């Protein structure tokens, strides 16, 4: 592989320009498989290469890795559907909307983003007043609150936007029950009723559940990625690219997305998501829309530092995609996510607690 943009964002480039696979030699294919495996994007890469009819030119061993990943991912989808049936049964009597978030939502609504994707847990959103009832029903159905100490329990319940993760006693599947989409301590407090009101019902077997409206789905995913620590950064950005590419069939989608993100006070992470998705995956965002949006929300002052940070942390977690500063950048991103999540006094309290008291 010749040096140049393809070498710098190797995996991302092949995910959006799969025809370039024709130029790869066996060393490049190795690197592609290693990076995709580290980034949890092997199944998605399979989807893209297959759709572009270039899977067949891959070395046999690379094809095997991709096929296995796609097969396992399809079993993940079956497993998610199975859990959704269990959740429906457990929550049957609850009065109020039950929204699916992230992977589970992509899966139940049949979005492209769910094809090839792995699922680690299931996220749902319920109105805060029903939280107690929902938790009780889940416990009765076998999802037990994961073993967290008193401090962590308080951290989740008082400061975060979700209950401590619940794990099923037999199947070990993990449920995250949210009551809003960003941590209230971050200072950004969109009224959750906005999300419930705009949400859409699913049809057929999944009619019990609702999902966020397309704009809100993108806003949620973008806020999670760009206000958080980029743990699976490139995978999450590719989810966003897939969602936006699908939703933008509606010509009004971009305007609605921008207006909605401004209304909810989440324009900055959405602006970051659009820029990065355009940069790495060439998402077809109309350029005037993007420029306008950028001018209003991405302050010029710290742009270079932000772009450097995002460039670093959106690389696959693999040595062939990192440089000497990647580890440092990940640390910064981790610190940044805490900085954004809590006001300074709470952050100081949280850090000193984590530092001084291991367990209680």
């Amino acid at each position, binding site marked *: 592989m010749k040096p140049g943009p393809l070498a710098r964002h190797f995996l991302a480039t092949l995910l959006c320009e799969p025809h370039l696979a024709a130029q790869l030699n066996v060393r490049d*294919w*190795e690197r592609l498989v*290693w990076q995709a495996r*580290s980034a949890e994007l092997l199944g998605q890469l399979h989807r893209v290469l297959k759709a572009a009819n270039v899977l067949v030119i891959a070395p046999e061993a690379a094809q095997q890795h991709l096929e296995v990943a796609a097969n396992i991912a399809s*079993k993940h989808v*079956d497993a998610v559907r199975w859990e959704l049936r269990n959740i429906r049964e457990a929550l049957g009597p609850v009065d109020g909307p039950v929204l699916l978030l992230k992977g589970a939502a992509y899966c139940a609504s049949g979005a492209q983003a769910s094809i090839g994707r792995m699922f680690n847990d299931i996220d749902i959103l319920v109105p805060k007043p029903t939280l107690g009832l929902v938790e009780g029903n889940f416990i009765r159905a076998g999802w037990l609150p994961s073993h967290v100490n008193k401090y962590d329990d308080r951290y989740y319940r008082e400061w975060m936007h979700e209950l401590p993760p619940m794990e099923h006693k037999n199947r070990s599947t993990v449920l995250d029950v949210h009551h809003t989409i960003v941590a209230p301590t971050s200072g950004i407090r969109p009224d959750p009723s906005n999300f419930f009101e705009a949400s859409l019902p699913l049809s057929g077997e999944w009619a019990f559940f609702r999902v966020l409206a397309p704009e809100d789905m993108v806003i949620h995913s973008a806020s999670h990625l760009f206000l958080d620590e980029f743990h699976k950064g490139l995978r999450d950005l590719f989810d966003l690219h897939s969602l936006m590419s699908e939703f933008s069939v509606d010509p009004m989608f971009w305007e609605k997305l921008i207006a909605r993100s401004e209304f909810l006070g989440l324009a900055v992470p959405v602006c970051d998501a659009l820029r990065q998705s355009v940069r790495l995956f060439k998402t077809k965002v109309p350029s005037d829309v993007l420029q306008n949006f950028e001018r209003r929300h991405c302050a010029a002052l710290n742009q270079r530092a932000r772009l450097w940070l995002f460039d670093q942390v959106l690389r696959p977690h693999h040595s062939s995609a990192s440089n000497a500063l990647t580890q440092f950048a990940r640390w910064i991103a981790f610190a940044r996510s805490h900085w954004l999540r809590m006001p300074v006094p709470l952050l100081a309290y949280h850090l000193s607690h984590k530092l001084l008291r291991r367990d209680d």
Partner: protein
Amino acid sequence: MKIASLSLPQLRQRLHSTGVVINCGPFNVRILSNIPAIGLQLHSLYADFPLVAEEQFVDFEVRVESPSHIRRYLRSQAVLHCDDRSPFKPLPLAQAFPMLEWGLNWVISSHAHAHLIVHAAAVERNGRVLLLAADPGSGKSTLCAALVHAGWRLLSDELALIRLCDGMVQPIARPISLKNKSIDIVRSLGESIVIGEVCPNTAKGDIAHMRPPASSVAAIDLFAAPALIVFPKFDASAQFSCVREGEAHALLELTRHTFNYALLAGEGFDAIAQLLECAKVFRIQYASFDQALPEIERLWLDAL
């Protein structure tokens, strides 16, 4: 070219620089290490393994390293990385080679999902496979070593890989891992047995590895179909017994020994059911090789 055709210093130098690529069943793995003991053990135990040709696809890179110079003097440790992931906590430097072996097992058991990955020893004779599936401590590897010494071909002592598409067992032929008393028991089988350095006090007790026969390594591309499954149980004080196991019980027990059963879901169930259609299953409780080996011989002749 084989590992043995490199001198020990050459092998160490390669491990330290470009790495050495060997075949581990379905995967080519590049091994890199700056730890001298790794070179020594590989040189002896993997002597007959061919060096994988340059143009071949490398599936994984496994690095076992002693991190820093300061650490080396204080309390030396070995760390294992694969794909920039570290599946294990660091271990004392003396356990570097067992750590590499566990790392290679981890690579196979967490990625070879085109196969049913069964915690079992697999040996071949007359073109058919005998599987020994059991919990740790049942004498599975010891029995496997004895059978291999008696002329069976080693496919694997730890992870039997049964290809989902056709039910054939894929050879791995890596060294046999022996624990505690079984190390001396296997050593006493005969002069031709080569056992690496004993590594004391690991999480699994004393560990040593037996070099696989050159003929098993040379036949790494020869797949074979299962014919017999034995669930062995070693108990020094017990009466010898051998009973036929019903298919339903055998299926349940095999699901317990299959690493990727839950992941493969229905496909895994079908694969085990298909396996039970071509292999009879027996449960053997034994107190010595003299009881177990003739019985396995009898069952084998019966099964073919």
